[in-house]
């Protein structure tokens, strides 16, 4: 029938011989080879159909009926850069298996469940084409070298030393997997052990795991830890000065559990200690404190810690690793669990991920800590070595009773963080923190020379600050600054409607005085109120 239809259209089967169709497109209609042109069209538009007309009849060929030829030798090897098997190899292997074709190997999949067409995806690209395509797409983005970045809010444009890329680019690190076989993974295991050690030194905490996904999910895991540690207590208190996305993540994690997230307003930009004391009670499992907080303000962490302790609740500290070059460590103010977004330690902003979830805690909580942990031991010959340990906490052993479902860690970024911290050393970290502090405070001061701008909060800040626009035109400011080449800051309206006239500005050690002055100039030059664009 089809054959007739095709020949009615003047297409002779012999003209579009099977070998051509197989080699170039590998498509047939039912059992009949199809012309090259139709194959190409169908390949691109599998949901569509092609109408073939001749003077006597019109015939529609639904592309869904065109299917890939079931053959082991269909794919020209030249298209597949990572495959080894030549047609000869495939034949030989099939013979050893005792199968006629590769399709036979898929026979356990019932025929009616098999896909009878090609996936609706764009055709394969060579490396050169792919590179060109991605360069084009990357070129559409205003990255940090094109627009000066003053954005913060949990992701920061810190400098990444070359040595970090060099080490993390070792494929023995990035193409290995979880060190289940300790004898073949001492490199990774020692790095993880050293990472844990670096994090305990950085935070002043007893123990650290070998990392979680990111800061927000680490905070949520910390909350779950606290709830498990205090099974009778069901309340988590988080001030509004904790990153809104972290609070949202915690809320998601708690949605189906018998627990409540209580948000404490922070009209002054920092925790109101009296309000905190009034909120925290005997039902409170944990209190979160972000230091410096989402607004960049330095909290009175000692006070918050004392309030939590008095009520018998755990203090969860969300800290900025860079700030610890200057600020007290979570362990210094009595945090039970400390979590952080660790991308700032040697991983670029990468549009938000993958990042590094840092988690450290009290010794007493170690068996409730999620994620992988590496420990030191000896091998049979008495040599010091490292292994994954305390694995009974984890899902692969304890299944539904595990401390968490976390399976992977962010090992490669723990490598990056380790190299970064080693490269900076105590002095380098202090200087980096100091540059952030000095430059951000300089910028804040310069901006406030203009009557239009003022600091929204009186509390001292570290590397971020909230500026209020008396003209209440944050969007206009951002637009003007963008045109001048600056990503000037984050508008706070989406998270804090009451701060819709405010902008959160972050300054890292990368920003130069010229850039800071340039931003001041750009913002000061902004017209007080632009009419809405047509």
């Amino acid at each position: 029938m089809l054959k007739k239809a095709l020949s009615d259209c003047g297409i002779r089967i012999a003209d579009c011989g099977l070998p051509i169709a197989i080699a170039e497109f590998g498509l047939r209609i039912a059992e009949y080879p199809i012309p090259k042109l139709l194959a190409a069209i169908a390949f691109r538009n599998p949901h569509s159909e092609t109408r073939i007309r001749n003077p006597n009849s019109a015939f529609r060929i639904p592309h869904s009926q065109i299917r890939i030829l079931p053959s082991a030798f269909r794919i020209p090897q030249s298209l597949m850069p990572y495959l080894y098997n030549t047609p000869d190899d495939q034949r030989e292997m099939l013979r050893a298996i005792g199968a006629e074709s590769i399709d036979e190997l898929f026979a356990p999949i019932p025929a009616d469940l098999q896909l009878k067409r090609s996936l609706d995806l764009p055709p394969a690209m060579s490396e050169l084409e792919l590179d060109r395509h991605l360069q084009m797409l990357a070129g559409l983005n205003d990255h940090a070298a094109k627009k000066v970045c003053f954005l913060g809010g949990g992701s920061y444009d810190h400098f990444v030393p070359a040595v970090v890329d060099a080490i993390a680019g070792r494929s023995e690190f990035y193409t290995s997997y979880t060190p289940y076989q300790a004898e073949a993974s001492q490199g990774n295991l020692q790095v993880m052990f050293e990472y844990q050690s670096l994090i305990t030194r950085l935070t002043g905490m007893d123990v650290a795991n070998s990392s979680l996904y990111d800061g927000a999910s680490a905070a949520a895991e910390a909350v779950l830890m606290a709830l498990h540690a205090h099974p009778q207590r069901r309340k988590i208190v988080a001030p509004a000065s904790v990153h809104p996305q972290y609070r949202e993540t915690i809320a998601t994690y708690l949605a189906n559990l018998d627990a409540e997230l209580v948000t404490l307003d922070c009209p002054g930009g920092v925790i109101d200690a009296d309000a905190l004391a009034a909120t925290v009670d005997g039902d409170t499992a944990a209190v979160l404190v972000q230091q410096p907080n989402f607004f960049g303000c330095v909290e009175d962490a000692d006070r918050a810690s004392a309030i939590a302790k008095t009520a018998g609740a755990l203090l969860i500290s969300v800290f900025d690793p860079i700030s610890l070059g200057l600020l007290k460590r979570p362990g210094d103010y009595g945090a039970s669990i400390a979590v952080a977004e660790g991308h700032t330690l040697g991983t670029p902003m990468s549009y938000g991920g993958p990042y590094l979830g840092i988690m450290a805690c009290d010794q007493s909580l170690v068996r409730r800590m999620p994620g992988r942990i590496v420990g030191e031991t000896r091998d049979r010959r008495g040599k010091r070595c490292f292994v994954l340990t305390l694995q009974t906490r984890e899902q692969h052993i304890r299944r539904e009773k595990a401390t968490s479902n976390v399976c992977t860690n962010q090992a490669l970024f723990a490598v990056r963080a380790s190299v970064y911290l080693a490269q900076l050393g105590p002095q380098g970290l202090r200087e980096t923190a100091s540059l952030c502090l000095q430059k951000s405070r300089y910028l804040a001061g310069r901006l406030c020379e203009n009557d239009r701008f003022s600091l929204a909060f009186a509390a001292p800040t570290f590397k971020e600050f909230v500026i209020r626009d008396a003209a209440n035109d944050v969007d206009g400011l951002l637009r003007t600054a963008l045109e001048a080449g600056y990503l000037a800051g984050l508008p706070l309206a989406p998270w804090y409607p009451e701060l819709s006239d405010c902008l959160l500005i972050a300054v890292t050690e990368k920003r130069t005085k010229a850039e800071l002055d340039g931003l001041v100039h750009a913002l000061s030059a902004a017209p007080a109120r632009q009419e809405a664009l047509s």
Partner: protein
Amino acid sequence: MRNTRDTQLLFDLSKPGRRAARLPACDVPERPPEELLPAGAIAAAAPALPEVTEPQIVRHYVNLSTQNMSVDTHFYPLGSCTMKYNPKRNERAAAMPGFADLHPLQPAETIQGMLHVLYEMQQYLSEISGLAACSLQPAAGAHGEYAALLVAAAYFRDMGQSEQRKRVLVPDNAHGTNPASAVMAGFDTVAVKTLKNGGVDMADFYAKLDDRIAVFMITNPNTVGIFEPAMRELADAVHQRGGLVYLDGANMNAILGVTRPGDFGADMQHYNPHKTFSGPHGGGGPGAGPICVTKRLAPYLPGPVVEKELRGASCEAREDEIAPFSPLSPRNSQLHRYSLTSPPKSIGRVRSFVGNVGVLLRAYCYIRTHGPDGLRAVSENAVLNANYLLSRVKHFLPVPQGDRCMHEFVASGSRLKAERGVAAMDVAKRLLDFGYHAPTVYFPLTVPEAIMVEPTETESKETLDAFAETLFRITGEDPQLLHEAPHTTPISRPDEVQAARQPTLCCPVF
């Protein structure tokens, strides 16, 4: 040359006064920190980090790296982990400043290229799974499972069934993340027995299936590398009871373009792009765990998701997007605008920002490199390689599931154990001596002395032959030699009991 010398700890290299980094001088007027910060907030001293030079750092870490086996250096047939080759072009692409140096909260108009990639990834993943909608948020496979179960919980809450539907059924050979995720999402888990061939025990399944079911989680192909024979029946039965079917996408490498979870009854699935789509494993991470769901579950997906607008109006989701010309050519960029939105009834976010974009970018490169036929060829060759290796191994290491598999198989060392006292672990350790990473052992728990082998498609017949011959040779070796293996690695077997009894988890500060 292999470096098997004692490797000192980073901290042992430290000497006061050494440093590797020099920061620029402060170019703004400085004030003492005590004037800028409250006295009570300032640390007495900087953290006790090691003081080392850059050459020390490089030598230390490069030497450590050589103590790892990795895909780039060794055959790594670690079952269920899909240790395939990690293309270098992907690495370079992800490092392009136009992708790597973007802040996650930049205005949408400054990141249209990035959003284009992410939007297309949503489309591709939906198409490969046969499911309508996609969220790229979750950071890992387990995180994806968890997010999808939260989606299910939100859906049932909306249906007014959250009190009734509390049970998640999980086959007993599933990854441990399945039951752990279910409990985190507030469900009770019920284990369903499996048969020797790895398929679900239907009698046990029906005994445990009732109107309390929320979700049935299934790994298909399952953890012994078999396509679930009763897939359709299982899915239909779950749907009939009003439950949802979750597909653990760990084994997608077997079925790309061959069959689609949405077509065989799944309502939700996650992907492991670091496995299936060649994002490197990074020594344990990062991965990513994007999820796809049916249309009725789409409103509950974690946000944000990328939306494409056509001159301000939301355009047809499946509009033809594969034209050979650039979709962002000047003509088109006036028509399209990408933005981030939160689905209307979203469960919320499960992490900060959009997702593990760097991993997704690599997966994007991989999918674009292969195209539809190439992806199918990936699965065909993965399945061919696994079956070939199975055919070579089964003669001396029985494979209880039978003569055929999908992308991996589970051999059993129980005969070896009974006859020669050699454990699966001994075999695994001895393989290291021959320069092979060990297969996964003792998983799944349902196969005694399990040796789980996944060769992947990016290995040659020659490698598989040599591996099979080595395995054969090992099964005949002196048991004592095997108990003490490995013999040539940087360390011999570690004392894990000591490590767990008296944990030393960090290097103390002196």
